[in-house]
């Protein structure tokens, strides 16, 4: 066929035209704008209006942010600086307050020579979470550290003798051993009941005295820090991390309990979930801060932050239970039946078949509950704990900084955004990773 071309008829083109560049109006920035911003007259008007709006906002905000007041020592000093720098109408942020108080906003009243402890606690938190969050990239031996971390974390933050966390850990060891022995000798149910009861008795009555005795023999410890010294972002992150870490397992148990065939278990779970979800978090916090104080025997000193931690955890667990129940409900019945047909018992079926799928389905819901809980920690300012929002009020009560609002809230919002946005991004990463294409 190669000779065909020499005999072609005149009106049939025999050579390809050279490729030409696409018209300038269709490619590059111009083309993109024509397609996306100015595709018809209505969109063009919207585009111009939006650009104008953005311009006006930025024109007001950027000079405000770029204000030369990092060295300001008080609000009036900032105003003088701004007037001297020729910022019209003294319009500009007073960043001196952030420069002076950012450490306080982050660490609260924690003793300054011990700042390494909360920092270490949160760096180690990353190390402890890594094998859980990025299971494909981190050696799984690190999981041992993750399991020990719940005992290291409070010890680093509150300090005191090292025997207390060890005694708390011993409760789990005792319970686990009892369960192992009894479930072989007697039944699993008896094993569970005895193990849990022994562990609880150990924690409530024996752990503290035993830790005290061992400590008097072999005192190893670090300087203790009272809960009252906790404040600022550290307090928010502490409450958030504990509530998030504890609410997921409790939520799973509650969700399973709600679907259980055991009548008492089922109604305890339903009652708990509906009660907690029916009550605002503020109410629970008030109960924690005032009512509990009254109802407890006189003279008991039940740590206020511990009370708040328990309440926020319970609150988050109830929501978590419902999110996970949603995941369980979304699983086709065939999955349960398939597990049964394989001869798996209840816990095996949950662990190997049901939960991996149910949790995967619930990831967006779980993470938004986490983010919600983290942001809800700011409510503790209402009961007089100095979280970042409470501290912003306390900072304004300094005569130098009275009247400063936007700078403080802006800084706090930025810090919260960093945390919440990373959690949200992580959840998207996890969804992509676990995507198995079943849709």
């Amino acid at each position, binding site marked *: 066929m190669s000779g065909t071309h020499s005999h072609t008829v005149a009106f049939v083109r025999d050579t390809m035209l050279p490729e030409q560049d696409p018209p300038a109006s269709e490619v590059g920035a111009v083309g993109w704008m024509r397609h996306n911003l100015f595709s018809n007259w209505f969109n063009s008007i919207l585009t111009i209006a939006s650009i104008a709006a953005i311009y006006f906002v930025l024109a007001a905000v950027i000079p405000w942010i770029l204000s030369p007041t990092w060295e300001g020592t008080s609000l009036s000093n900032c105003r003088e600086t701004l007037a001297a720098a020729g910022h019209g109408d003294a319009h500009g942020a007073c960043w001196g307050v952030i420069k002076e108080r950012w450490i306080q906003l982050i660490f609260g009243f924690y003793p300054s020579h011990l700042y390494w402890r909360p920092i270490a606690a949160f760096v180690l938190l990353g190390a402890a979470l890594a094998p859980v969050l990025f299971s494909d990239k981190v050696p799984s031996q690190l999981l041992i550290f993750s399991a020990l971390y719940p005992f290291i974390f409070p010890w680093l933050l509150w300090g005191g003798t090292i025997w207390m966390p060890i005694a708390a850990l011993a409760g789990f060891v005792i319970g686990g051993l009892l369960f192992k022995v009894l479930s072989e000798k007697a039944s699993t149910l008896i094993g569970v009941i005895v193990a849990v009861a022994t562990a609880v008795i150990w924690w409530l009555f024996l752990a503290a005295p035993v830790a005290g005795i061992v400590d008097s023999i072999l005192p190893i410890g670090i300087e203790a820090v009272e809960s009252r010294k906790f404040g600022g972002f550290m307090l928010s992150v502490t409450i958030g991390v504990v509530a998030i870490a504890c609410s997921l397992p409790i939520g799973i148990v509650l969700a399973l309990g709600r679907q259980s065939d055991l009548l008492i278990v089922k109604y305890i779970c339903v009652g708990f979930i509906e009660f907690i979800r029916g009550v605002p978090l503020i109410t629970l916090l008030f109960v924690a801060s005032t009512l509990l104080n009254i109802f407890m025997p006189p003279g008991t000193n039940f740590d206020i932050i511990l009370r708040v931690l328990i309440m926020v955890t319970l609150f988050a667990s109830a929501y978590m239970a419902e999110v996970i129940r949603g995941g369980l409900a979304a699983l086709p019945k065939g999955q349960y039946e398939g597990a049964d047909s394989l001869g798996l018992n209840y816990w095996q079926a949950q662990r190997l078949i049901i939960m991996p799928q149910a949790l995967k389905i619930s990831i967006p819901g779980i993470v938004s509950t986490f983010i919600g809980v983290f942001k809800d920690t700011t409510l503790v300012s209402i009961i007089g704990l100095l979280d970042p929002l409470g501290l912003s009020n306390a900072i304004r009560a300094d005569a130098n900084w*009275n009247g400063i609002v936007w700078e403080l809230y802006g800084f706090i919002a930025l810090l919260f955004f960093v945390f919440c946005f990373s959690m949200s991004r992580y959840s998207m990463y996890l969804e992509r990773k676990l995507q198995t294409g079943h849709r």
Partner: protein
Amino acid sequence: MKKSVILGAMTFAGLAAGAASAGTLDDVKARGKLNCGVTTGLVGFAAPNANGEWEGFDVAVCRAVAAAVLGDSNAVEFVPTTGKTRFTALASGEIDMLARNTTWTFSRDVDLKFEFVGVNYYDGQGFMVPKELGVSSAKELDGATVCIQTGTTTELNLADFFRSNNISYEPVPIETNAEAQQQYLAGACDVYTTDASGLAATRATFDDPAGHVILPEIISKEPLGPLVRHGDHEWGDVVRWSLNALVAAEELGITSANLSEMAAGTENPEINRLLGTEGTLGEMLGLSADWAKNAIAAQGNYGEIFAKNIGEDTPVGLARGLNAQWTEGGLLYAPPFR
């Protein structure tokens, strides 16, 4: 309904705590620290500084009591309380005393089972308006929009004042003082009303303080003072007389500058009794003989504390007014130390 529940809870709290704290003084000595309830932040009265140390007029009272009891003005654990949590914190024993610009009223003293041991600041509710409004008296405020903090006695006082003067107003409810400043400056209300000390502190933060006037009318009595639980009279006496010692020290001319000199012994027997070189006043309180000396050494006498935290040289800039000594036309009158 809601109120009666709260009051019921408070009463219960009072009963439970009354049984619990028969000896607050002993508790404080054993603990080595005074738990003092303060506000979460009010300009001039209590606020943490950049190092996390609490400062202010109410804080100074806590420090004086701690110095009197424990000999160390830093042996105080400051417990920030809000308007909602302050009374339960005191009733439940979480704090030993409350120094949180709390108005001494009948129902708080009698019904809530607390004991106000004195007054450290005589306040009253006032009004602030922009100068350009051209108002010179609160009685000219007919039809004004008023920024008012909800759930406070100021709200009730405001209603009383306008009703008794037969003029109308439109309230703009707000939650915090910071919000009030923003609303007022943005023109959401014509008038801002709160305690006169708070108005002065707020006005001091404005870009143009001279553009706003505080009207002469003071429409309520707000005696602010420290309080303790009902029924523990030994502890109540300690707090009461620590406060009185600060007031008496100013009257007798004892300052932090001449304190050590005076404590060596003077011609004035009352000074000697107060500072413990004569008599056994400290022993009667269950404290050391130099209790009052320590209390005064903490932050100076009443006048010095006032000048340092809220006086005319501070940004708050309050005049002594009612809070001057009785010899100078004020209301401060410490009973004799004898």
